[in-house]
């Protein structure tokens, strides 16, 4: 109790320390006056009384000092003093302060920026109950059309889903999700809405409950159960203005009526459900129809999630899934040959892709910060040397070493705090730009913001930074040899060879670190250029593409769909400016690809190697519209119709793989049930990724396989976006109820596929550039300082007849020695560190010699420049001035 009271009153005293000083002074004055009065009454003269009063009082100053110590926390008082002093000295040298603060702002700011992304995307726990126990399940199979035996993860077939649900004891609940688009006709125009069909146990498994209404019942998973729908919070707000009476109302989707049974909480919107579905965020949830009897093992389109039983691990679950899949492979080799299953944590499933890039960038900014620290440390060293006279004086006046270190330290902290604040502003300003180059499929990126955690992180790294670069110079500053410094008087002192060594080491380290960063950036840049230079096999320029979905009611038959596509193409081709047009599913570089397994009639089935190819349904003009070369035979024509013999066109890789050394024309392929005749061969194209290996590819005519959903691709003679209004208009005239979605230039789709690489490359380049600039400034600073220190010596040399050239050689030579040492160290470091990049590189080795040479040359050139400028200044010095300067 007493202790608390004491603490509080000290705290109080801290706040009103000036007032208390005044009070004490007044109290002492009246004390002395009282005493004087008494002495006078005792018969002393006023003057004697005055001195007697002071004598009996003792030291007034000591009293004040002790009073102050008792009053409050000593260290705080010191801190305040130090702070005031630090601010004053920093104000006195604005140049130094600005450079230091700016450097720190760059370092801290880039860290704050990247951290705020890492924070929102990776560190925020998933908004589900006990997310650590949630897993995602995938099927694996040999790469479709692959030629090198790689495996890919694919969604799960309904058959596997039921088996896993029943036969894997480590999984407590197994839920399935199917992403789909539905047409909603409630607004002014029909629109495609992202939706998901989910098994009834999905929400309970996640630990999420509807905010209003109820969840799906298990019986609603049965076919022909009453149609029900759950709304996302956002959809409810937009369409029903948040009216609770929406529950029970009917929503018409895809021409069918659905009763609204509930509304999801806002936390399930957007980022809240990231990764569960393939669209950005489902606006509507529908019950997934599950029929176990005769569930397909061939088609796989379920995304499966599960909760581990408490105590079960990923490994136990994986072992059980493996056992199930091995058994299935034996039981039904025709569908399950080569198939496996994979269990991975939900976080890994959602963030696997982005994770590596973000951690890489965080690593890069930490390096930038380190370089910034070294830079400021260097500046502080220089300053400590310049201020050694001042330090010595303060030491002579009785400042303890601890006190001196504390003083230097405070200065560093003031600098970093200023740098941190400026860095935060920088981060805030750059976050917008940053978000615009972030790949659009990064989960939860719309929740990136500078929040409390980012602030705390920034504060933490600011303090750490201050300690890192502040401690060493503070220590050295306090080591000053009193006698020597004071005796040296105004003569400049070079600060001793030990100090010079430290500073040189700092510069060498900076150069080395920048080299590592530059190497990383250089490699990614090379890789990106190589990637962008890849020929996709088609010409994506000036092609606009969009998706059409035909409704079940009006386009129930193949004939109707076929007829629609024919009319559509006739209409679109008649638009002025359209060079050619085609329908295709899926269009290359759409967000999905379609695979089809096939057999070669007459050849035995090899269960170990199931043949499967990337599969496109196309109209005759597809090859012309995308400018894909037909290398043998023919493309499709109007004569390939329903009823005419089924035909297919295959790519060169398939032709060579299946019929090596033979002409594929006239050969037959069994696709599903039908046998198709190969009538042509086209040059390989990339379907989804520029860096993919050649795959087996098959195209079939849309007239023989008219699907409900197709992409329209139209090549314009110029800017293809200009065609869009006309296309919309023609399509509305054909059928106003059809929703259009996924509108994009083919070029955008291709560029979108390398956005992540572009993002990593751009950012690393920015950070490497920052590092280079900082290293250059550091080197420049050291050289300038060196030159200033040795002005006298240089003057003497000049006076003795040294040529300008000699001087330059002397100084630049010294600097370049440091650069060279840094390069050697940096190359060693880069060789070790760029290995982590290996997985992100395309057609470039992590130890690419050309990149190494280029980066070293760049650094050497920048280094030489940073040395040359101060050297030239030194060489221009008038010898007489230099000699007199002392």
């Amino acid at each position: 109790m007493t202790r608390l009271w004491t603490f509080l009153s000290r705290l109080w005293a801290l706040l009103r320390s000036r007032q208390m000083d005044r009070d004490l002074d007044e109290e002492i004055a009246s004390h002395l006056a009282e005493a004087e009065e008494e002495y006078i009454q005792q018969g002393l003269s006023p003057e004697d009384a005055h001195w007697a009063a002071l004598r009996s009082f003792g030291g007034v100053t000591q009293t004040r000092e002790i009073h102050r110590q008792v009053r409050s926390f000593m260290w705080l008082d010191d801190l305040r003093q130090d702070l005031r002093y630090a601010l004053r000295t920093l104000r006195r040298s604005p140049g130094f302060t600005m450079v230091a603060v700016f450097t720190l702002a760059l370092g801290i700011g880039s860290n704050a920026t990247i951290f705020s992304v890492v924070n929102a995307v990776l560190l925020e726990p998933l908004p589900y109950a006990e997310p650590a126990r949630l897993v995602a399940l995938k099927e694996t199979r040999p790469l479709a059309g692959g030629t090198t035996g790689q495996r890919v993860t694919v969604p799960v077939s309904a058959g596997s889903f039921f088996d896993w649900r029943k036969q894997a004891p480590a999984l407590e609940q197994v839920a399935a999700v199917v992403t789909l688009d539905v047409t909603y006709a409630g607004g002014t125009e029909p629109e495609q809405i992202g939706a998901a069909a989910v098994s009834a146990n999905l929400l309970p498994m996640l630990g999420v409950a509807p905010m209003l209404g109820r969840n799906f019942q298990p019986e609603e998973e049965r076919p022909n159960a009453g149609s029900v729908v759950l709304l996302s919070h956002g959809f409810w707000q937009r369409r029903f203005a948040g009216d609770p009476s929406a529950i029970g109302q009917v929503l018409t989707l895809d021409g069918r009526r659905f009763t609204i049974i509930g509304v999801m909480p806002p936390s399930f919107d957007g980022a809240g459900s990231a990764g569960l579905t393939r669209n950005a965020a489902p606006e509507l949830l529908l019950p997934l129809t599950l029929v176990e009897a005769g569930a397909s093992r061939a088609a796989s389109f379920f995304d499966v999630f599960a909760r581990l039983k408490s105590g079960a691990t990923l490994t136990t679950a994986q072992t059980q899934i493996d056992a199930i899949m091995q058994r299935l492979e034996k039981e039904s080799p025709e569908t399950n040959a080569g198939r496996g299953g994979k269990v991975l944590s939900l976080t890994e499933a959602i963030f696997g892709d982005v994770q590596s890039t973000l951690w890489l960038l965080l690593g890069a900014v930490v390096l930038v910060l380190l370089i910034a620290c070294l830079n400021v440390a260097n500046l502080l060293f220089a300053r400590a040397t310049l201020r050694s006279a001042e330090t010595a004086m303060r030491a002579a006046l009785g400042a303890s070493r601890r006190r001196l270190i504390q003083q230097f330290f405070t200065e560093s902290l003031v600098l970093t705090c200023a740098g941190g604040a400026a860095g935060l502003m920088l981060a805030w300003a750059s976050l917008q730009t940053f978000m615009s180059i972030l790949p659009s499929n990064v989960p939860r990126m719309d929740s990136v913001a500078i929040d409390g955690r980012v602030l705390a992180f920034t504060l933490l790294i600011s303090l750490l930074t201050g300690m890192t670069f502040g401690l060493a110079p503070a220590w050295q500053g306090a080591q000053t040899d009193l006698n020597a410094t004071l005796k040296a008087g105004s003569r400049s002192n070079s600060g001793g060879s030990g100090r010079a060594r430290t500073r040189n080491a700092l510069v060498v380290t900076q150069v080395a670190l920048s080299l590592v960063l530059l190497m990383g950036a250089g490699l990614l840049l090379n890789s990106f250029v190589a990637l962008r230079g890849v020929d996709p096999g088609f010409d994506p320029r000036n092609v606009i593409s969009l998706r059409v979905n035909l409704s079940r009611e009006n386009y129930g038959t193949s004939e109707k769909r076929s007829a629609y596509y024919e009319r559509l193409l006739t209409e679109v081709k008649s638009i002025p400016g359209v060079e050619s047009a085609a329908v295709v599913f899926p269009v290359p570089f759409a967000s999905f690809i379609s695979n089809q397994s096939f057999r070669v009639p007459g050849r035995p089935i090899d269960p170990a190697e199931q043949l499967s190819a990337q599969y496109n349904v196309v109209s005759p003009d597809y090859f012309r519209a995308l400018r894909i070369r037909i290398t043998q035979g023919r493309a499709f024509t109007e004569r390939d119709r329903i009823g005419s013999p089924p035909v297919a066109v295959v790519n060169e890789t398939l032709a060579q793989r299946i019929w090596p050394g033979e002409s594929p024309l006239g050969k037959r392929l069994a696709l599903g049930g039908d046998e198709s005749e190969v009538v042509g061969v086209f040059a390989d194209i990339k379907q989804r990724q520029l860096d993919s290996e050649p795959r087996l590819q098959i195209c079939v005519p849309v007239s023989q396989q008219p699907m409900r959903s197709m992409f329209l691709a139209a090549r314009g003679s110029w800017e293809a976006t200009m065609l869009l209004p006309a296309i919309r208009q023609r399509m509305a005239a054909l059928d106003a109820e059809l929703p259009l979605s996924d509108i994009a230039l083919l070029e955008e789709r291709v560029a979108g596929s390398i956005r992540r690489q572009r993002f990593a490359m751009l950012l690393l380049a920015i950070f490497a550039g920052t590092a280079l600039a900082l290293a250059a400034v550091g080197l420049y600073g050291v050289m300038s300082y060196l030159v200033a220190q040795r002005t006298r010596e240089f003057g003497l040399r000049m006076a003795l007849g040294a040529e300008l050239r000699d001087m330059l050689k002397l100084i630049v030579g010294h600097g370049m020695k440091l650069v060279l040492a840094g390069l050697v160290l940096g190359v060693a470091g880069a060789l070790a560190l760029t290995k982590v990049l290996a997985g992100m590189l395309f057609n470039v080795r992590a130890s690419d010699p050309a990149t190494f040479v280029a980066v070293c040359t760049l650094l050497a050139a920048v280094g030489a420049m940073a040395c040359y400028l101060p050297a030239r200044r030194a060489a221009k010095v008038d010898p007489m001035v230099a000699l007199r300067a002392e």
Partner: protein
Amino acid sequence: MAPDKSDVLYGTLGLMVIKTLEALGPLHGYRIARRIEQISGNQLALNQGTLYPALLKLEQMGWISSKWGKSESGRRVRIYALTRGGRKQLHQEEAQWLRAADIVERFLKISENA
């Protein structure tokens, strides 16, 4: 330092102050100092200045309180008064001191007898 005068024992100044305030009621600093000097029969070398940090400490402990007032001669002075907590503390410390003094006295007597 004069051998016949002893320094104020560490920690006892506070006790003297609160005892003084108990005996005489609220007082200002100078009066407290003078009173302590008088009671000790000028046996104590009290630097009157040291009184003020001691007063501050007592106030921080919550044993005395202070406010501005007038001295007998009409000067503005800070007047200190014992609080209830201070009174309790005084009784405790008094008892402790007496006990300690008693023990020391007995100890000294035994030593003399031996």
